[in-house]
């Protein structure tokens, strides 16, 4: 049981990295990134492939994160000149294209069969490896949260909120919204890449099917339910999300009549319903800013 709880905790912490990335992008700056999972995938595959070729894992993690951030840069350059909804479509297309590349370029990624022998995290620690993983993830998340809180209170953070709330006013003050947008897009995507690296090395097996758009919208759900633009909201939402996903697994154990694939459909439907209800009745989320809508 405790091993199971540790596993859940690790998954929460990995997803939290994604939620924090989306919090910077959407919550703080108002960037509608529907392609989060694409950067997650880049991180997972990059770190796995690098580590399998003898690169030390610390380096492969960093490189994976940098690569995911770099991948966001050209997308930012072309897409940020576009309106919100076009940007959303372009990023969604980007993540699907990344998945297609992974499926098709088997020489690199082993195609649909995926990579089944990703080096595991902290093999040296033997039986206490999961606990070490929790520790490292906690430190990484804490460090990012501290930096994020500082960013929010800094002039840079205020500029980001201005990008979200009133681009024209920001331009009138002589600042360039698109520069801030690109920086935030790269930053959030690098976080998603880091999350991908942790994910790949933790589950030690990655296939393209893990990187479908549904994952992006899991994170969207977490951020929207938790509270848009709040770090506390991202944490709360992520815990709630994993609770829901894992809870549905227990539900299946209790009601054995529901087969696996049906449960997947129930999950998809539940995500959809929650997105609709929160968008209509509580767009600021449970812990969000009550004064705004």
């Amino acid at each position, binding site marked *: 049981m405790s091993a199971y709880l540790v596993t859940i905790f690790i998954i929460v912490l990995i997803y939290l990295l994604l939620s924090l990335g989306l919090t910077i992008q959407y919550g703080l700056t108002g960037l509608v990134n529907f392609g989060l999972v694409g950067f997650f995938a880049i991180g997972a595959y990059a770190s796995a492939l690098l580590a399998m070729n003898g690169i030390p894992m610390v380096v492969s993690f960093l490189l994976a994160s940098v690569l995911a951030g770099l991948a966001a840069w050209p997308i930012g350059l072309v897409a940020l*000149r576009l309106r919100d909804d*076009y940007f959303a*479509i372009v990023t969604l297309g980007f993540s*699907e294209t990344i998945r297609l590349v992974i499926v098709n370029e088997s020489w690199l990624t082993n195609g649909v069969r995926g990579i089944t022998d990703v080096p595991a995290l902290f093999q040296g620690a033997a039986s206490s490896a999961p606990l070490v993983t929790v520790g490292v993830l906690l430190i990484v998340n804490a460090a990012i949260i501290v930096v994020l809180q500082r960013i929010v209170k800094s002039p840079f953070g205020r500029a980001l909120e201005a990008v979200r709330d009133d681009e024209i006013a920001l331009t009138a003050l002589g600042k360039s919204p698109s520069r801030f947008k690109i920086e935030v897009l790269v930053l959030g995507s690098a976080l998603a890449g880091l999350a991908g690296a942790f994910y790949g090395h933790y589950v030690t097996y990655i296939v393209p099917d893990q990187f479908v758009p549904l994952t992006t919208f899991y994170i969207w759900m977490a951020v929207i339910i938790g509270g848009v633009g709040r770090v506390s909201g991202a944490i709360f939402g992520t815990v709630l999300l994993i609770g829901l996903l894992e809870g549905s697994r227990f539900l299946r154990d209790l009601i054995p009549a529901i087969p696996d694939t049906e449960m997947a459909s129930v999950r998809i439907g539940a995500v*959809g*319903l929650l997105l609709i209800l929160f968008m209509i009745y509580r767009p600021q989320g449970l812990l969000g800013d009550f004064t705004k809508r």
Partner: protein
Amino acid sequence: MYYIQLALNGLSQGLVVGLAALGITLVFGIARFANASAGDGLTFGAYLALVGQRITDSLLLGVGFSIIVSALANVLSYKLVFKKLAGRSSVALLVGSIGLGFLVRGALGVVFGHQQEVFNVQLVAPYRIGELAISILDLQMASVAALALAATFGTLYFTSIGRQMRAVADNLELARVCGIHPERVMIALWSLVGAVTAVAGLILGIKTVVSPEAGWEMLLPAFAAAILGGIGSPVGAVLAGLLLGVAQEVSTPFVGFSYKIALSFVVILFVLLVRPSGLLGRIEGVR
């Protein structure tokens, strides 16, 4: 000759993309948001036709059933979701429509399961012109699509409600001042979109297989066609859809079968950067 055959096959794919894009562009032009539930709307229409055919034992009646129920369902989704989000940012509507799409896909998965279903249609030997093979089924589908298009454009350009819809698309405030009832226009819009989407879903289902994910995979090509045709331009959406369908098929020998969706992504990027008004869009088209 091989390429002409591919292009012909592409046309029937293009019908699906074009009709789906027509729905998207109408919503974009009149209700003013990117409707991401359009893909799952196709799936819904396909399942409805399947059920209709099984109940009535006739494909034609099944299609009618699908069109009517899909139109009603779209009006319902407007009343329950999009109307409540009206006046909010386009992102709120977009996320709401993503949610609606997921809800529909999940519900279809629970009701029908995940095994692929096929329409029960007779196989007839294709017409042959020289080396070209033209399937009778394709011709029938094309005429259904042509009927749907004629009905849509007839409504848009020759009826009072169509004129009102175009007025709202043009300038919402001005339309309201002129005494046009926005609610009535929206209900007409969503029934029209529901009907068009149902026909697109039917053709998709007949040409391939029906599964809960089938429609979602058409979403990006449909968006690409709507953008390529010029957002808000119904004629442009259909033309661009046909073009994209043909381009997808003809490019297959070069880029491989599974990079089709990537072509849509490239088209979206390219059009938005080079000519955001699309092929037939208005010059001032926003991006």
